[in-house]
């Protein structure tokens, strides 16, 4: 193992990898700092460029973008009271009051330090937890894999937003779109044109769905640009202030790791949970919300603490924990790497390189934040009327460069319109994405299992691993139904009271 790690260290410590990580961190911070641009957008926009990079460099670039955007969200949250990403929403509560008091720089520094510590602890947990989980999962065949995928699809319930029904509709759309093209036995499905015979590319669908709707929304609704940023002001973070928040940072990091490793929970929940715990236990709890550094530290350490941990189920089981890891799953597949237990058997070198590279990216995050916090603050003021049209053109060039196919560009534009219509109809896009990526794997394993068993459905229940995943799936569905029922009852009670 140690020899392999040393070899991986040598493989990662190259100039192209460092450039990719630095570019990813800086790019991610810039995109995360711009309100309306999300980490998912950052990762999907970079996908076309990864085609020209080696697999490990590509994944490191995407991971760096993820981490950078998670931290970047705090910049606009602190300076213009607009969280750049959903996970930074909690940082607004104390970050903006601090900026109003002329302590914007101090808040940014605390956000950076706590983000880096959370990120580092998360990476270490990835290193130690992913491999044992994968070794256990090595015993799975097509039937067990089918059950695992069925369990993965239940994540749709937790990323459906306000309506489970609309979430399932979205997932059905994604599953249906994934069937376009040739199936495993050579039959064509929905191949209306010649181009559709090879199916729809993951990248144009993802970029269209996540990057373009924001542009169309801006053109249709024309919101006012109101990004007046506060000044950085007092910039120094003292040792006493750091020590005062250390407990919350460490607790937030652990909360981030635990909640990040559970598929479907995500950094926003971790940030709010960590913040409420810090507020409950801190001696300055009553000052939370008025500009307390500990509040910034609690939320930022938790949301960055999720970054490495969400990779645990992705690498070990091939289960994406959230939307960004869903995009990364697509990136792995594009490069011929299939996340899951076999990755640890067939591509252990790449896995170790990834672990080492991810540790390096924490250092890059710290350096990038320290050197360029002032410049990042200005970036949050770039008007969206200039930025979003340029992003569309960048997407068009990027998509065309992948396969020199005008069809892919058309898919991108159509998916942008579909994404906007879904947004208008309140249909969440995240279940669509997860279903579109997992759909083919789910179907292939189901059909393979049934072919092996000569149509006997009992094949899905032959091993205890299948039973375990089946039980988890049933448990998750039962909990979701219970939650929805409680929500419905509460709503009915409120309606009856108001009547």
């Amino acid at each position: 193992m140690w020899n392999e790690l040393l070899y991986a260290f040598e493989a990662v410590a190259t100039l192209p990898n460092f450039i990719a990580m630095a570019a990813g961190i800086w790019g991610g911070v810039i995109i995360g700092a711009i309100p309306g641009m999300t980490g998912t957008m950052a990762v999907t926009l970079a996908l076309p460029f990864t085609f020209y990079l080696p697999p490990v460099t590509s994944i490191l670039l995407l991971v760096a973008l993820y981490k950078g955007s998670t931290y970047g969200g705090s910049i606009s949250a602190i300076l213009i009271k607009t969280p750049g990403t959903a996970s930074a929403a909690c940082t607004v509560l104390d970050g903006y009051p601090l900026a109003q008091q002329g302590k914007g720089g101090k808040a940014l520094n605390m956000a950076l330090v706590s983000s880096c510590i959370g990120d580092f602890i998360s990476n270490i947990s990835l290193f130690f937890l992913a491999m044992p989980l994968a070794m256990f999962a090595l015993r799975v065949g097509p039937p067990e894999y089918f059950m695992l995928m069925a369990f993965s699809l239940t994540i749709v319930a937790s990323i459906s937003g306000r309506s489970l029904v609309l979430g399932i509709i979205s997932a059905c759309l994604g599953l249906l779109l994934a069937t376009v093209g040739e199936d495993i036995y050579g039959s064509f499905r929905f191949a209306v044109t010649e181009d559709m015979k090879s199916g729809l590319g993951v990248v144009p669908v993802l970029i269209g769905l996540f990057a373009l709707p924001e542009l169309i929304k801006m053109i249709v609704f024309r919101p006012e640009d109101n990004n007046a940023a506060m000044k950085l002001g007092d910039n120094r973070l003292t040792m006493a202030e750091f020590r005062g928040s250390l407990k919350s940072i460490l607790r937030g990091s652990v909360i981030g790791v635990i909640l990040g490793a559970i598929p479907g929970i995500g950094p926003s929940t971790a940030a709010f949970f960590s913040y409420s715990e810090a507020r409950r236990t801190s001696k300055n709890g009553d000052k939370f919300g008025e500009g307390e550094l500990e509040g910034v530290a609690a939320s930022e350490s938790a949301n960055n603490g999720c970054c490495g941990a969400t990779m645990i189920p992705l690498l070990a089981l091939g289960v994406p924990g959230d939307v960004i890891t869903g995009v990364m799953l697509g990136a792995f597949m594009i490069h011929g790497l299939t996340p899951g237990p076999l990755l640890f058997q067939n591509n252990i070198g790449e896995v170790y390189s990834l672990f080492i590279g991810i540790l390096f990216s924490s250092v890059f995050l710290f350096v990038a934040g320290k050197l360029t916090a002032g410049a990042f603050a200005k970036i949050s003021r770039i008007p969206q009327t200039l930025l979003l049209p340029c992003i569309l053109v960048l997407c068009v060039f990027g998509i065309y460069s992948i396969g020199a196919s005008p069809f892919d560009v058309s898919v991108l534009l159509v998916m942008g319109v579909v994404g906007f219509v879904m947004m208008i109809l309140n249909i969440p896009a995240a279940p669509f994405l997860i279903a579109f990526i997992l759909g083919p794997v789910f179907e292939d394993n189901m059909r393979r299992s049934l072919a092996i068993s000569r149509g006997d459905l009992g094949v899905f229940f032959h091993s205890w691993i299948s039973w375990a995943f089946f039980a988890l799936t049933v448990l998750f569905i039962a909990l979701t139904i219970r939650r929805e029922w409680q929500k419905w009852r509460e709503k009915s009670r409120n309606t009856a009271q108001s009547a």
Partner: protein
Amino acid sequence: MTPNRDFYTGLIATAFFAFVLFVLIPIYVKVPSFIPGFAPPPDMWPRVITVVGLVMGILAILFAIPKMRATANDRVMSIGATMHRNRKLIVRFSGVLIGFAAFAYAMPEIGFVPATILLLAYLFLMTGNYSRKIWMIGLTIVFPILLYLVFTEVTHTPFPEGHLFSAITADFVTLI
């Protein structure tokens, strides 16, 4: 009852999945005469998905009914009135659709770079905010050319020059 957004979403989803199940699958998913082993036919999975989608669409309509009942009658607005009230938004959305369609059509005709320059100019115009005209004009010209240079130099992508441009160049060469 006031039809709300969830009601329309359910209606659209039901209609879409019904259309796929009863029209598209029979036409565009061909079942081969021989399937190896006992593998399920290729139309099995799309049928399962569309049936689930159809049921969910109907459920979305059913769940929207209590909300619609709860809404006061004086706020009832027909779909026509709703569209009339939002006509500006609909015109802008149609503008986006026209712009995208025109780009997809024009790209092979006039070439990739001129088409993207026109697309970018069109999108800037559609934003309705002209307070940074100089930036808009500069970016419209410089940004696509810069991207063209980066992609042709780094990734060697063969961007389409356009039938029109190729024809003019060919005529010009013939003339010389």
